């Protein structure tokens, strides 16, 4: 089984509630789930959808083909109905759409009338729709009923009862009206964890003991702020909404200087404002984790859509020369782990570390059998009271063999902690002399870089070990490339290489990925941007030049069918 369900409608109609609830029911039932969303930059109206793919095998991307369409508006009929499979179903409420549709696919379910009749209020039309989808699929209602009870616990028994009646009414109607539905859901397995990329970054931050987060709201990074604010009380995190992104990064640097792990995040336009602060982090060697949520630019671009257009921006932005670390996770598990690694390495080497993602990764929800928090690392690299008091002398920017100076927490001992955005001496005081400058560049940049590179893991490999075709990607295209390899593997000797630890660029000691590429008949670099930013980085770092590319830059992510279609063009 492998079904796709799309809930289409206007912003404000509650399609997210329907989608979230259904995907949670599926994940709790034990199915593999992948969800993604498509929405416009508006609060009400327009046309949006929420799509759920549910299957009995692991999923990592969406399909174009739909099995069930819940149409809350006429635009869903115009835009989405064409994707519904022959055996599929489109459910809608003709009283709301003010139109009837004929044909075996269409099912007119009176969402609103059933809501009023059984739940007592029009508001519960969405609950009726959720029940109807479960009815079509022939699933049981018990998990939904538990979710309803949990969700409305605070609102009291009456509200719970009304919603349960509404869901049951939708369910019963769909079962009776199905007219030969062919859906069958396989046996249940153990319940799965369902998490979105943006929440996984938040989990990674909390688990890394991030204590301070300052940001200015900007899609698609705002979810990190919301997540951490929700955890502030329980985990002791100060979340500050700054007046602008310039303030956000500078606040985070202040907090980091004062001795706590700090993070900020934004999207391209907001990150552009942070760039001055980025080089301040580098010069003062203050650890910071920066989340960069890419969306199509330039300027404000497509505010709610997706692109991988800021790799070069993250790599080369800011004045002067300094080391930085760039991670680009491909799924929620990597998002959590690499956020943790960003915190660890940022503090260990006292350099800025990026977690770059995009709207697509931020919004997509994936099921995992579980996420292993025990694998996360936490080492406090700072000198605090006892370690500091024992020192006869302390210099914040002391020369060392590794280039990493001891980082003290101000106020914890009699030693003072001095740092400066100007070139400075070992004490942190402003200097002008050439000799100190040379030594400081050596310490800050040249000594640290090779050490940081040793921490970078090779790209992820999947597929045929002696592949004719190798697909290469980075960041959020991980999932769809993997599914394309899976789908084509019965016809082709095909494999993928996915880069999530991007800079410093992975070395080849552990895995000679260039040999793999060199032996392939064709290596295709797949990117969600127009200019092949990763391909350029790869050429600059390794000399390897791709002969083929697939670039998508319309703001929409690839579905499996779309990518496979593009690949057919290239490889026949």
């Amino acid at each position: 089984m492998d079904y796709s369900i799309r809930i289409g409608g206007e912003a404000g109609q509650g399609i997210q509630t329907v989608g979230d609830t259904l995907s949670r029911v599926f994940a709790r039932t034990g199915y593999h789930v992948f969800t993604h969303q498509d929405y416009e930059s508006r609060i009400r109206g327009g046309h949006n959808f929420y799509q759920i793919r549910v299957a009995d095998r692991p999923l990592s991307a969406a399909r174009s083909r739909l099995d069930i369409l819940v149409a809350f508006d006429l635009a869903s009929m115009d835009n989405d109905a064409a994707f519904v499979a022959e055996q599929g179903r489109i459910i809608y409420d003709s009283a709301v759409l003010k139109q009837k549709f004929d044909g075996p696919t269409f099912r007119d379910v009176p969402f609103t009338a059933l809501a009023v009749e059984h739940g007592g209020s029009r508001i519960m039309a969405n609950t009726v729709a959720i029940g109807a989808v479960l009815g079509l699929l022939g699933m049981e209602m018990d998990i939904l009923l538990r979710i309803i009870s949990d969700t409305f616990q605070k609102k009291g028994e009456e509200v719970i009862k009304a919603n349960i009646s509404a869901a049951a009414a939708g369910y019963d109607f769909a079962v009776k009206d199905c007219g030969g539905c062919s859906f069958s859901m396989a046996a249940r397995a153990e319940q799965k964890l369902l998490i979105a990329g943006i929440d996984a970054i938040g989990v990674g931050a909390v688990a890394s003991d991030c204590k301070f987060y300052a940001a200015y709201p900007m899609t698609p990074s705002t979810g990190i702020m919301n997540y951490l604010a929700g955890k502030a009380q329980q985990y002791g995190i100060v979340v500050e909404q700054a007046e602008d992104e310039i303030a956000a990064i500078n606040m985070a640097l202040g907090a980091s200087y004062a001795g706590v792990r700090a993070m900020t995040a934004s999207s391209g336009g907001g990150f552009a404002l942070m760039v001055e602060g980025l080089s301040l982090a580098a010069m003062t060697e203050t650890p910071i984790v920066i989340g960069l949520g890419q969306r199509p630019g330039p300027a404000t671009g497509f505010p709610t859509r997706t692109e991988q257009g800021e790799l070069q921006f993250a790599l080369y932005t800011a004045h002067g020369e300094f080391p930085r670390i760039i991670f680009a996770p491909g799924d929620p598990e990597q998002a959590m782990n690499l956020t943790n690694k960003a915190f660890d390495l940022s503090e260990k080497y006292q350099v800025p570390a990026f977690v770059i993602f995009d709207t697509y990764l931020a919004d997509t929800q994936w099921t995992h059998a579980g996420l292993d928090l025990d694998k996360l690392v936490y080492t406090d690299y700072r000198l605090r009271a006892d370690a500091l008091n024992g020192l006869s002398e302390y210099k914040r920017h002391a020369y060392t063999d590794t280039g990493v100076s001891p980082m003290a927490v101000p106020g914890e001992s009699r030693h003072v902690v001095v740092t400066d955005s100007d070139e400075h001496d070992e004490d942190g005081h402003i200097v002008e002399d050439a000799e100190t400058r040379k030594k400081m560049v050596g310490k800050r940049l040249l000594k640290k870089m090779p050490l940081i590179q040793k921490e970078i893991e090779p790209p992820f490999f999947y597929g045929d070990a002696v592949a004719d075709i190798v697909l290469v990607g980075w960041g959020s295209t991980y999932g769809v490339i993997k599914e394309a390899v899976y789908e084509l593997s019965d016809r082709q000797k095909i494999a993928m290489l996915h880069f999530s630890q991007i800079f410093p660029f992975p070395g080849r000691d552990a895995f000679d990925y260039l040999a793999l590429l060199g032996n392939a008949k064709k290596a295709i670099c797949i990117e969600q941007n127009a200019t092949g930013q990763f391909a350029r980085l790869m050429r600059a770092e390794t000399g390897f030049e791709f002969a083929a590319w697939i670039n998508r830059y319309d703001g929409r992510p690839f579905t499996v069918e779309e990518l496979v279609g593009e690949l057919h063009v290239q490889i026949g």
Partner: protein
Amino acid sequence: MSRLDDYKGQTPAWCPGCGNFSILKTFKDTVVELGLEPHQFTIVSGIGQAAKFPHYLKCNTFNGLHGRTLPVATGIRLANHEMPVFAVAGDGDCYGEGGNHLIHTMRKNPNIKLFVHDNQVYGLTKGQASPTTQEGTVTKNLPFGVFSEQLNPMALAVALDCSFVARSFSGDQDHLKSMVKAAIDHKGFCLVDILQPCVSFNKINTHEWYKQRVYHLEPEYDPTDRVKAFERSLQWGDRIPIGIIYRNSRLSLEERIPIIHDMPLVKQSPDINKLGDLLKEFY
């Protein structure tokens, strides 16, 4: 207890006769009198001649970017609100480049003491107009004179209900010391605007110019009356009041954050046992 010697820093690279020297001396005297030791507080500064201040002292220092002093200071306070945090800036640094941060820091009200060395000119970049330069002043890059209205930091601060608004003068060290002390005693964000001459570039607002005009607010002046304070903050020209123009007892930002009520953030150690709960909501 600290001694003046504990605060010996680098030799200042300021112009001879700069008002900054007396501000530096007054500050050192004050912290020694208060018994503060160099490791017990942090000075944050940005860019400009005033921003070099902490290098000519000895204390915890974060000398960052032009105009970005207050966000860094806020971050430090939120991470460790047991550490007194002073911010030192010039009029260009704080009222120009950092204007947005000043506005919002006054609104947020972290317990930071901001000392603005206000010489009404850009010294480090050699004599351009600052936000507090008198309208009409001709500079090398403004041959037709400054068109913009002169910024009134006192009126701005009163308008924003800034917790502590004071003005002093580098040529009146006793007064300056009393203002530094009052600011340190006050709980909440403090703006102390310190009038000072720039001997190299400001030929209008000289030491003499200020001396002839500044006067102490009379003892019966009530700085808690906001409407009267606004009236006094508008006074500029022949007579310029110095002293605490306005103060209130708003809760500080730190006091409003429940997470740090019992303990500063920097002293809260991670609780590994709690992490198990993190993933529960995703099932």
